[in-house]
């Protein structure tokens, strides 16, 4: 399965190895790991709770994968996204693209991450000593996703 939503952690080494297993056609695997980072402000982050829309989230991720495969000659694609309550330092997401050549792998990986951030139905609840609040979407993420639209 190229697209998964799960609460448990994933094994980065095993997941990436699978993208080039059983074939000698892959010359490049580009990947991205997103982690729960400490909050930039004064109040320490206790946890991040990730919510999703079961059904639609997987559909959107599948559509993002399909678009990447239309745009670049890819041998394999992987998106694994966690949901639930995560501590600082924990992995949230793994995105990877495997191709014969590195330019396709790099471009596709970045495209997948940009599109995921802008379109996949996930929401983050930030929990600190002073309470909880839903994170707002960044205008940066919308811009990052939009730069692929003109291609």
């Amino acid at each position: 399965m190229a697209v998964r939503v799960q609460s448990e952690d994933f094994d980065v080494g095993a997941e990436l190895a699978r993208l080039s297993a059983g074939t000698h056609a892959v010359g490049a695997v580009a990947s991205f790991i997103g982690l729960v980072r400490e909050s930039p402000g004064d109040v320490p982050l206790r946890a991040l709770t990730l919510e999703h829309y079961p059904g639609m989230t997987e559909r959107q991720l599948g559509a993002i994968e399909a678009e990447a495969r239309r745009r670049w000659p890819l041998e394999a694609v992987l998106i694994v996204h966690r949901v639930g309550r995560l501590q600082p330092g924990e992995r949230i997401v793994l995105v990877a693209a495997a191709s014969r050549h590195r330019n396709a792998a790099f471009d596709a990986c970045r495209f997948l991450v940009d599109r995921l951030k802008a379109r996949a139905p996930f929401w983050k609840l930030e929990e600190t000593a002073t309470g909880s609040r839903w994170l707002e979407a960044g205008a940066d993420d919308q811009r990052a996703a939009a730069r692929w639209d003109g291609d």
Partner: protein
Amino acid sequence: MKLLYFAWVRTAIGLAEERLTPPPGVRDVAGLLEWLKTRGPGHAAALAEPAAVRVAVNQDYARPDQPVAPGDEVALFPPVTGG
């Protein structure tokens, strides 16, 4: 019609899900949001700024002029923040 709410839309409305039968005059997403606002103070608060809410009809993003039908699954949620 099955309504689903996520993130702060869910906490504002106080429900994750409800089944409603909109009146015949509700034909599109914009009309549905206007009608939902009248369902209670939580709904009114969640939909005070309709531009802050994203809508999906049958698990695809929908614009305000997209038609809605009684059998649809309609979801309301804030702009996404995954990854």
